[in-house]
C-alpha cells in the first residue's frame, strides 16, 4: 500500500498459473495492486482483510462456485459495495444464465481474456470508488 493511486484487485481463481500471470501483468502496468486467492472459500476472508476495490471471480471452481461467493459478498455488510467481475471459461451463456453481458447482475469476461480489455474493465469498475 505504498501508493494510494494503485487500485486494489482481489483475484480469485483455482488455477495458480492464471492468478500468477494475471497478477504479473496487472502489477506490471503499475496501476494495480493485486492479491490472489486459489481457494474459493478463502475469497471472503481475503476480501475482508485486503479491502479490494474490485473482486475478480472465476465461476467454476472445485470447492465453491463463483455465483455463491458473489451472493455472499453482496450479503456481507462490509463488502456489499465492492464491484465484482466474473471470469468464465464457459462461453455457453445458456448454462450460466447470462444475459446482456451480465451474470447475476455482475459483468463478466470470457476466458481467455485480452489483458487490455481486463485492464479497461477493472479501471471502469474501480473508477467510481
Amino acid at each position, binding site marked *: 500500500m505504498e501508493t494510494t493511486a494503485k487500485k486494489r484487485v482481489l483475484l480469485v481463481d483455482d488455477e495458480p498459473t492464471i492468478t500468477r500471470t494475471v497478477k504479473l501483468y496487472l502489477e506490471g*502496468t503499475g496501476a494495480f495492486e493485486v492479491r490472489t486467492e486459489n481457494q474459493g472459500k478463502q475469497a471472503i476472508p481475503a476480501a475482508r482483510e485486503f479491502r479490494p476495490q474490485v473482486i475478480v471471480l472465476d465461476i467454476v471452481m472445485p470447492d465453491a462456485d463463483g455465483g455463491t461467493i458473489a451472493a455472499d459478498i453482496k450479503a456481507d455488510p462490509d463488502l456489499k459495495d465492492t464491484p465484482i467481475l466474473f471470469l468464465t*471459461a464457459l462461453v*455457453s451463456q*445458456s448454462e450460466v444464465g447470462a*444475459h*446482456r453481458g451480465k451474470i447475476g447482475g455482475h459483468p463478466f469476461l470470457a*476466458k*481467455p481474456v485480452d*489483458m487490455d480489455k481486463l485492464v479497461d474493465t477493472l479501471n471502469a469498475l474501480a473508477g467510481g470508488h
Partner: protein
Amino acid sequence: MQPIPSQVMRTLPARALALSAAALAVPILGIVFFSESLDRYSVLLWTLALVPAFLLAYYRSWPWVSLALAAGMALLIAGYLVAIVRGFEAPDWPFLVFVVSAYIAIALGAGWIGELRESAAARQTTRQELERAYEALQRSHAELQAAQLQLIQAEKLESVGRLAAGVAHEVKNPLMTLLAGIQYLQKQGLATNADVEGLLVDMSTAVKRADFVIRELLNFSSPHPLDMKANDLNDVVERTLGLVKHEVDRVRITVVRELGEGLPPVTFDAYRIQQVFLNLIMNAAQAMDGSGTLTVRTRLTSASALGTAAGNRATGAVMSNLDAVLIEVDDTGPGIPADKLPKIYDPFFTTKPTGQGTGLGLSVALQIVEMHGGKLSIVNRAEGGVRATVLLRLQPEQDTHGDDREETRPAR
C-alpha cells in the same frame, strides 16, 4: 315381433310365384305368337346376331346383358321347337342338333374364357399386391435408414456437446494463462528482438484461433436461443463480404454481387445468419484456391420452394406468394466429388489440411438454417464449381428452438 316374419313367410312365396309366372308368361306368349315366323333361316340369322353380342357382353363382364342374351338364345331354340310342334316348320333335326351343339360349344367356350379372365385378373391383383408390398417395404427400409442416420447424427452431436462443454473449461483456462503470459511479455517490452516479437504475435494468434475453435464447438453443441429481428438481407450479405474482404483480396477472386432490389425485411438472427454466409463464402473462396469468381445472389422467392431448393429456378415464374428469400453463393472451384457430398454436413468432416479446416463450417451452417426453419442445399453446378443455396422465410414460424425474448440475448 313374431307376426312379421310369419307374414313375410306366407306372403313372399305367393308373390314370388305370381311375379315369376308373369315374367315367364311374356316369353312364352312371345314364343307362341311369333313361332309362326320362325323358320330355319330366321333362327340362323338371329343366332348370328345373338352369339357375337353374347360373347361381347360376356367378355366385357356385363352379367345382366349376357344373361338376357343367353335367355334370348334359349327362347330362340324354344320358339323353333314350338314352330315344329305347331307344324309351321318341317322338323329339321340335323339343323336343330347343329344349333344346339353350337350353343353348348359357345357356353363352354364362354366359361373357358371366363376362367382365363379370372385367373389373369387374379394374377394381376397378386402382382399388384406384391408390388405394393415391395414398395411399402422399400419405403419403410428407407425410413428406417433415415431414422438410423438421424440417430447416429443426434448421438454424434450429443457426445460432441458433452465433450465440448468439458473441453471448453479445461482448455480455456490454460489458454487464459498463455494469453496473459504472452501479453505480459509484449507489454513489458521483453521481446528483445524482432524474432521474439514475431514469435509472440504468432503465439497470441494461435491462442485466439484455439479459442475460436472451442467457441464454434460450444455454439454448435449447445446453441443459444435465436435473436429474431427484422433485417435488411443485402445489408447482412454486404457486412459478411466486408468481413472476408482481406481473405478474398489476398488472392485473385472476383466477387460478383447480384443482389435483388427492394427486398422486404427478413426476420432472422443476424449474427447467426452472418455466420452461415461467412462459412459458405469462406468455403467458396478456399475452394477456388487463388483465382475464380465468387457470385453472391439474393432474391425473393416462395417458401413452397423450400422443398426443392435446387429446382427452384424452374418454378420461379409461377410463384404466387413471395414469402421467402433465397441466397446463393456460387464458386468456380473444383466442385465436390460425389462420394464426399453426403458427408459434407458431418461435424469434423474436412478435406482441408489440419489447422485450416475444422470441418464444422457446414454443420454449423446447416444447424443455424434449420433453427430458422429454412433450407440449405449444396450442389455441384453443371458449369463446374459449387452452388450453396439458403432459403429463409420472411416470417419464420415460431417453433424453432429459438426464442425471441429480448433478455435471453446472450452477450458476445
